[in-house]
């Protein structure tokens, strides 16, 4: 259980205390990862199924390692293409996997709300590994973890998220969690990439990168999709890079020396980030990857291990 929740569907429904509970536990989990023998028996005899309907190497691997370090058995079930084209519905797939008695179902799906749907219909705990443009809760948590590690706290800090906010589940999970932890969040990108009404979620909107990052403590650079066929949001990546990408010169001139740069990966080098920035002093991108394992260990531990009998079944 994470507080009163037996699933992790999103961060919008989590309280500040529940987020901090996960982050504090992840700190202990990170210590395990630094040991010579990276194995603890916490989830021995538990089964984690990674059900991925979208290709993802790093998130799936991160969940798999997290499960294995905790001694859980991990099974990867990958299905590309929509359930409709496959001929089996999402619910049938999930019900079949559930019949194999897993303790946690980790789901990634291109349709927003797919984890919410599964959580209503299966008996085991459901963890979202990203759904459509809705949420990517473990990414939001690992970003918060990384910022807490680097900045001490998010309280009063300014975080800028740059890129295609409209189609980004990372942006939404970061926004929900970071604002709950007291950060001010600015969103930046061309107007075509800013979804309607996003200010109502507690962010300010900027179109000029220089102004947006002024005084910021952290900048999250989102991955830009090269092609959105039939719905062009930008003329091309060349122009995007010129106005909304970060290179060493802009980073040196516009960012505070202490500012950190995050990226959920995989990076399009030369588009949203130049190589010298991605590998440079501001970058905490590889910390994010390591912290991702620790955060996912904490989530799996809480949802597969510590659920008391008769607990409330409310989802996040």
């Amino acid at each position, binding site marked *: 259980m994470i507080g009163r929740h037996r699933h992790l569907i999103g961060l919008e429904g989590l309280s500040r205390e529940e987020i901090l509970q996960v982050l504090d536990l992840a700190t202990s989990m990170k210590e395990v990862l630094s040991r010579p023998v990276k194995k603890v028996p916490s989830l021995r005899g538990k089964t984690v199924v990674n059900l991925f309907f979208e290709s993802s190497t790093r998130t799936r691997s991160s969940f798999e390692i997290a499960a294995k370090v905790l001694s859980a058995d991990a099974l990867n079930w990958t299905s590309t293409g929509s359930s409709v084209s496959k001929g089996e*519905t999402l619910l049938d797939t999930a019900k079949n996997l559930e019949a194999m008695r897993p303790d946690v179902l980790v789901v990634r799906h291109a349709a927003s709300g797919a984890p919410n749907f599964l959580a209503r219909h299966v008996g085991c705990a459901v963890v979202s590994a990203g759904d459509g443009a809705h949420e990517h809760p473990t990414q939001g948590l690992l970003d918060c973890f990384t910022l807490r590690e680097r900045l001490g706290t998010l309280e009063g800090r300014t975080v800028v998220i740059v890129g295609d906010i409209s189609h980004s589940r990372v942006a939404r999970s970061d926004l929900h969690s970071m604002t709950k932890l007291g950060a001010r969040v600015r969103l930046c990108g061309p107007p075509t990439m800013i979804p309607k009404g996003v200010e109502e979620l507690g962010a300010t909107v900027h179109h000029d990168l220089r102004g947006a990052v002024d005084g910021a403590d952290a900048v999250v650079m989102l991955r830009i999709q090269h092609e959105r066929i039939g719905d062009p949001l930008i003329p091309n990546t060349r122009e995007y890079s010129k106005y909304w990408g970060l290179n060493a010169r802009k980073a040196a001139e516009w960012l505070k020396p202490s500012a950190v740069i995050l990226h959920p990966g995989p990076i399009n080098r030369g588009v949203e980030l130049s190589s010298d920035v991605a590998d440079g002093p501001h970058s905490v991108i590889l910390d994010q990857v390591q912290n991702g394992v620790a955060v996912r260990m904490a989530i799996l531990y809480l949802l597969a291990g510590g659920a008391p009998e008769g607990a409330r079944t409310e989802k996040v």
Partner: protein
Amino acid sequence: MSSALVGTLVIQGGRVIDPANGVDGIRTVVLRDGRVAEVGERVDAPRDARVIDAKGRWVTPGFVDLHVHLREPGQEYKETVQTGARAAAAGGFTAICAMPNTLPPNDNASVTELVLARAAAAGAARVYPIGCITRGRKGEDLAEYGELRAAGCVAVSDDGSPVGSSALMRRALEYARAFALPVAVHEEDLQLVGKGVMNEGAAATRLGLQGNPVQAEEVMVLRDIALADLTGGRLHICHISSAGSVRAVREAKRRGLAVTAEASPHHLSLSDGDLVASDYDTDFKMNPPLRSAADVRAVQEGLADGTIDAIATDHAPHAVEDKKVEFDAAANGILGLETAFPVVLDLCRRGVLTERRMVEALTAGACRCFGLPGGTLSPGAPADVAVLDPAREWVVDPHALYSRSRNTPWKGRRLAGRATHTIVGGRVVHEDGGAR
């Protein structure tokens, strides 16, 4: 319907609301030989008449729904003419217009005749078929309006599909004039909708669902009003959902154009905020999508001030397998016939709408859009009557509905208001004996 078998039916003691005749008070209604014989304050029931005691109830012209999907032929697993007409009767509807997006589409007399034959066999609500605007609903060639009219179609529509070509839409409005057929339009600029599955705005941003902006409807409403002006054709805007569309229709009517509009109970009562609260419930997915609270208010105002002529349900049955999937993949549409009355009645309770205006929009207002008979209790009018208990509370159990499908966002909700008797051509086709 044979009137020879229908005797005399007397409905006593009820509050008769007949907006077309300016009647609202306790009256007795006498139906004889399939027609309205008399409506009066002091009328003695003939000795051989069947008497319905309507004390505490409303007696109105039977409701008329301009927009129903009966799914037959082709998708009988969702609904049939029989189950749909029966569901209509249970909701107080005595006549429904059947949209042509069947398989095959109703673009020729044989499909129209099939629907009419099934309706006659069902013996529930009357069914008025709507023919296609374009052959196969493909948006390429005009359908044969003369043949469709002669077979019994009351309007043409490509519902579910907008007519993309302005030139073809112009010809449709012009050609339909020859047969006095209104052209009922589903307004949507498909490029602007893109992959949108719900109303564009803060609610869609929160859910991460792709947005469908109100402007996708409005640009087409404005285009077609301009074409109605050009052609003098009769334009009917289906399921109007946005404040901008309501403004455009209000302005068109002020200019004297032959434009009418309908609104659905769900666009009058639910917003995209309800979809957020439902946690991606696909029974809140329809097209046009549930709009913002401000749009809902504008549609309510448009109905109250007469800009919107009719309440039409857009009854769209879908089977569980069409709905119990990811939100993006789910079929558009919800049931409407059996919940329309209590849902709209709630607007009266909240002061949004007068009871008289509500009844008018469900009866005479609807009939005027397509030139249908009925909608009044004038002597000589068809004996199509609804007896309604506005106080009857019931919990919506999708399994207990007459429709073959269960896709209703009001499932589990306690609603107040139900038809107790539905009379078509003087014959009681639905009677609800449930305890109060």
